[in-house]
């Protein structure tokens, strides 16, 4: 038997509550619910039960379970009752053809290795709950996969979908300082393998594009922010394409040890060999991406310019030394 207070007992209590509220045709008063769901009988007092029940209601609603309250009082009291409407609760009974399930399966697998892998698999499982199993042979041989490795992804996605104003620290491309931004999120898009947030920047008073990987630290919701609407003609991808796509490629000068840094050598627009080291001019569009690449080469590649990329690399290396218990 599970312990009466452990997580298993709580799941049992919540499931009994869901079953009772789905089964009933009339809204059930709290007193009745306390009788039906045995785990509520363990509550030490009326107050303890009330607190437990309030929390349980909130948690069910957070799961998307449409728990409704109705006035069931008579003339002399105003008691409320609770129930879950089966039609509101259940996924509509929709039949999917095998080829439709095949593309849905592919859509779900796209997220198989991203932070949304769980919801993607659950969604497909729900759609296939009653469906006859016929695997999507027609889609053999193709497999798209998405990554959501940016730490800010989850919070940004929730803000976009829930239309909530957020604030975060952001490091602009080519800039060293981190600035706090307040943004009304409009959209989120993956473009060339990177995630971008579009929205209205309340401090700059203009629409802006933010790269998620440049958000530093946590993303917080702005409390009591004004409501806003996403412009009807907003297309996140178009905005990113025009703003980011036109970021002028710049040129970095790097010193590369003989036979090393081959990915940089390949892209170099000019190479000056000089004994142990070569000096390369490398075109790049993004400070962080170049700093990541160069940091990975350790002592085999040194950035001469621009100073902001040089500093980003030094900071990464110092961070690595410090994290490993040394002074840097």
């Amino acid at each position, binding site marked *: 038997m599970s312990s009466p207070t452990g*997580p298993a007992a709580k*799941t049992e209590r*919540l499931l009994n509550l*869901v079953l009772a509220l789905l*089964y009933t045709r009339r809204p059930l008063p709290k007193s009745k619910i306390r009788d039906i769901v045995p785990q509520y009988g363990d509550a030490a007092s009326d107050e303890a039960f009330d607190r437990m029940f309030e929390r349980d209601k909130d948690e069910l609603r957070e*799961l*998307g379970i449409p728990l409704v309250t109705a006035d069931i009082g008579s003339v002399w009291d105003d008691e409320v009752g609770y129930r879950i409407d089966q039609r509101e*609760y*259940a*996924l*509509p009974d*929709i039949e*999917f053809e095998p080829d*439709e399930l*095949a593309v*849905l399966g*592919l*859509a779900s697998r*796209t*997220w198989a*290795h991203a932070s*949304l892998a*769980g*919801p*993607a698999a659950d969604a497909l*499982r729900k759609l*296939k*709950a009653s469906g006859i199993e016929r695997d999507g042979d027609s889609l*053999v*041989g193709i497999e*798209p*996969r*998405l*990554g959501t*490795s940016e*730490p800010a992804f989850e919070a940004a*996605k929730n803000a976009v*979908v829930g239309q909530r104003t957020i604030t975060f620290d952001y490091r602009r491309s080519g800039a060293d300082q981190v600035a706090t931004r307040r943004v009304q999120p409009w*959209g989120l*898009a*993956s473009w060339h393998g990177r995630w971008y947030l579009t929205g209205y920047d309340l401090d700059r008073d203009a629409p802006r594009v933010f790269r998620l990987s440049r958000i530093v630290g946590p993303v917080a919701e702005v409390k009591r922010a004004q409501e806003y609407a996403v412009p009807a003609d907003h297309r996140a991808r178009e905005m990113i394409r025009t703003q980011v796509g036109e970021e002028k490629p710049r040129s970095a000068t790097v010193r590369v040890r003989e036979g090393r840094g*081959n990915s940089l050598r*390949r892209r170099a627009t000019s190479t000056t060999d000089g004994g142990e080291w070569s000096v390369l001019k490398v075109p790049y569009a993004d400070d962080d991406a170049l700093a*990541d690449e160069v*940091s990975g080469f*350790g*002592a085999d590649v*040194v950035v001469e310019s621009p100073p902001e990329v040089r500093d980003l*690399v*030094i*900071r990464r290396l*110092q*961070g*690595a030394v*410090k*994290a*490993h*218990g*040394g*002074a840097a």
Partner: protein
Amino acid sequence: MSPAKQRAKGAHETATDRLARLLTMVPWLVARQGIDLEQAAGELGISTEQLEADLRLLYLCGYGQMPDELIDAQWEGGRVFVTNAETIARPLRLGRDEALTLMVGLRALAAVPGLGERDAIERAMAKLEEATGASAEAASRVEVAIDEGVEAGMLADARRAVEQHRRVHLTYLVPSRDESTERDVDPMRVVNLDSRWYLEGWCHRAQDTRTFRMDRITALEVLDVDGTPPADAQLRDLDAGAFTPRADDPLVTLHLEPWAAWVSDYYPVESVETADDGSQTVTLRTPDTQWLRRLLWRLGGGGYVVAPTEVATEVADGARAALAAYGVDPGAPTAG
């Protein structure tokens, strides 16, 4: 999902997460009465022990506590039966994230050039919108572009070759040698990883499986020759990234800050423990500490090697040597 991830998921499952999982699992099992226990666990992405524990819990639940009001769950003889569960025999509506993953995924597929399933995608999308209502609208604000950097004709040809087991002749630019090569390949799979398309297959020139970036394929010709790869040809594990670990490779323990936790999603790890602050302690096997050093330099303090200490020292010493090349005082070397 790797076994390690499954275990990690089970360890963090809250009571409410488990409820959500059960509400999805019951309709699935009700429609598959008598399904083999192990098969069910496999398809549900959980261990058989977990499934048995779930069934034991279901057995205790009902809309009342009279015997005829309780759910009946049986799994003796290795076959699962869930009855008297009409109340929750339909799955709960798709949650916001659930609807979002499918809608965004379908829309991305619809934009892939040369994909033949456009009609099925459109029908699936219409039904899904009907089933999800408002969530579908919110999902339209998240977009994924996987349709760039590849020519429609080449993508369609590559896929046709995979489906029909036909050999292809490639003209391929090898970046490391900066030379154009000609080779015959028996294609096995077309994949898109973070918006970049790749063709994987058995390369007759290398006598091994190889991955070709499609934007470096300058010409692809589908030959009128059978292209069934050798039976022992192994596809690369896409999650393995830079390396494929073996059971006897040395075990490394890393500590990752919350913002570096993507590492455990990206690379195959043996175990993950997530602390309350979101930081992780992960173990992984790798024969190649060079790869690991590079990763940790890039992370710039977002992670460190807990064990073995030799590897931690290598990372720190390498970073110091690099700092010295910048003329930055790297501080004292690591003790020991």
